[in-house]
């Protein structure tokens, strides 16, 4: 997957776990929690959905890499390079 495809995939997940949010103006370089009402349970949902949809494991120590769409893409790119 390309970085743009990864960002799209994460956005798809966020649209499910935060269905009331307007994602159209989300800035990819700004922390998701600064732009959306997301709490720790929501981030666990992101981790779970990555596991279910893409068989990707995100260890707890790496949760910080999911802060923004850009950081998600950078972190997940090696894990999703074969998809």
């Amino acid at each position: 997957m390309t970085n743009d495809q990864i960002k799209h995939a994460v956005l798809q997940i966020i649209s499910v776990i935060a269905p009331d949010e307007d994602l159209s103006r989300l800035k990819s370089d700004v922390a998701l929690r600064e732009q959306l009402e997301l709490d720790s349970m929501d981030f666990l949902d992101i981790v779970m959905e990555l596991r279910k949809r893409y068989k990707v494991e995100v260890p707890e120590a790496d949760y910080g890499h999911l802060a923004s769409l850009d950081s998600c893409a950078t972190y997940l790119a090696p894990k999703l390079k074969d998809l």
Partner: protein
Amino acid sequence: MTNHRRIVITGIGLTSPNGNTLAEYRANLLKGVSGVVWFETRYMGKVLAGVCNYDPLTYQLKKEVRRGTRAGSIAIYCAQEAMADSTLRFASLDKSRIGVYLGITEHGNVETENEIYNISQYGYDTKFWSHHHNPRTVANSPAGEVTLNMGITGPHYTIGAACAAGNAGLIQGAQMLLLDEVDVAVAGGVSESIHTFGIFASFASQGALASHADPTKASRPFDRDRNGIVCSEGGCVFILERLDHAEARGARIYGEIVGYHMNSDASDFVLPNAQRHIECMQAALTRAGIAPQDVDIVSTHATATPLGDIQECLALRAVFADCPTTYFNNTKSFIGHAMGAAGALELAGNLPSFDDGIVHQTINVDHLDPQCEIPNIVLNSPRQLPRVDYILNNSSGMLGINSVVVVKRV
């Protein structure tokens, strides 16, 4: 008794299989409209059930609905509707003096079944088990969801009381007001049980699940051809206040809780005990300070199981042996058995009788079972009375738990 020690109902919010407001529900009871339909459930296919069609997004965000439980969503809808109906100025209330007390038959089965099904799609690997499972299944969940949604900071908990739970929630709310623990009680009962296949499967294995080609005729308490329970979801929440509090603000008062009692059969896991029913009703009447003859309407619990209905009727005939002006009805014949919500919904559907004097009927009794004959049982069409002053609401549940509430016109 001072008005500070008298507890009154000033708001009602509900969702039932045949109505999402008290007015709609009452109208459908008087018109004989059933709420039982065919319902698809996991592993079992189509079953008969009472299904609610309220709009969860009336009071919840989509995210709240997703994160919470069906019981919590029902509870929120009912609590918000009840608060609005009470005309209390919620924004100016001390939220720490509001308590939420909800009766439940069970909680957590729905989410547990969902998670087991979920991990079955991943080879039963438990790393796919949701982190939402614990907050969704803690026993206080439906009441806690109400406090989260409404910003209530007083006490909240559920009262696990099988199918006696609706009355039990109401009783708990009244008791907390009497203890001066709160100034407003949000009290009643809720059920999400139709979303677990287990309740249907268990009743089926027990030989206690209703079957009928026509869903609207499936729930048949007291009928000779009754063959079991129709499971339903639903909720009913009352706003309770002390009478002096309610009068000071000129509130509309639906009725006063003058009597209540709970007891235990201590005799069988599932079969009701008529003698304990008798003792429970008599104790509630004693607390109310009235005789059986003073009761105008008895809202029965009967669930349409062959033996359970007979046991309740034995008790009713004993308590109301010489009561020519006492009338009996049954709401489950319309909506099925709403489990934790049943007692609360059944009381709510009868409270308008204080205003219109009409006793809603029991439907689907084509051939009254001789063992269920009670004098003045209202069958198949409503009955107009000159006046209704007292309603007794009878409930019971598995493990032998009984709850009775007596409400008086104010």
